[in-house]
C-alpha cells in the first residue's frame, strides 16, 4: 500500500487559494489519488480523484505530475467553511479493492 505524507496543518485567509501537497513515493500503477474533506463529527466527504495530469471539478483542482509521486489539491478562494481536515488517499478503490489507509491528514484553518 502506498503511504502518504502531508503537512500536519496549514493556515489561510478567506479568499486565498490554498494548495495542499501530498507525497506518495511508492504509488502503484493501478492506484488512484483521492482527496477527502472531514468536518468534526462527520464522515469524510469525497472531494476529487485523479490518476494523472490535472482534474478539476466545481470545488477543487487536483494536479498530478508525470511521475505520480505527489499530488496537490488546490482550493480556490477558500472561505471559513473550508476549515476542515483534508486527507489524501492512494489506492485502487472500487473494483479490485484493497484496504484504504487514512494518514493523519492536513488540518486547514481559514481565518477571516
Amino acid at each position: 500500500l502506498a503511504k502518504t505524507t502531508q503537512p500536519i496543518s496549514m493556515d489561510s485567509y478567506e479568499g486565498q487559494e490554498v494548495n495542499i501537497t501530498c507525497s506518495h513515493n511508492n504509488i502503484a500503477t493501478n492506484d488512484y489519488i483521492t482527496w477527502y474533506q472531514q468536518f468534526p463529527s462527520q464522515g469524510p466527504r469525497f472531494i476529487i480523484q485523479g490518476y494523472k495530469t490535472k482534474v478539476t471539478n466545481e470545488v477543487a483542482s487536483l494536479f498530478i505530475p508525470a511521475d505520480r509521486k505527489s499530488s496537490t489539491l488546490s482550493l480556490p478562494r477558500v472561505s471559513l467553511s473550508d476549515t476542515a481536515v483534508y486527507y489524501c488517499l492512494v489506492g485502487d478503490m472500487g473494483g479490485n479493492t484493497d484496504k484504504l489507509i487514512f494518514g493523519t491528514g492536513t488540518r486547514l484553518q481559514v481565518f477571516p
Partner: protein
Amino acid sequence: EPEVTQTPSHQVTQMGQEVILRCVPISNHLYFYWYRQILGQKVEFLVSFYNNEISEKSEIFDDQFSVERPDGSNFTLKIRSTKLEDSAMYFCASSGSTTGSPLHFGNGTRLTVT
C-alpha cells in the same frame, strides 16, 4: 445525490454489552467498509466486504467484531462485549464496482461505552 445512511447517530451502551451499528449503503454499490475514529485521532480501517464475505480486515477487527449484510440493503457491524476503548465514531462507506470508484462515507455512529 445518493448517500450512505447510518443509524443510530449516537449509541450509548454499558461495558460488556453487545451493539449493532447499521448502515444503508448507496443502492448500486457492491463494496462496503467500516472505519472508526477515536476522538482526536485519525480514521482507522476496520473491514471491507464484498460478495457477502470479508475481503480485508485490520488487526483491530478481531473476534469481538463481525459484519453482516442481512438483506439487500443493510450492512451491519456487531461489536460483542464492548469495552471502554471501543468508544469512537464508526463510519460506514460504500463504493461502486469499477476500478477507481471512490468511497462514499456516512456521517457515522458515535458509540459511547460507559
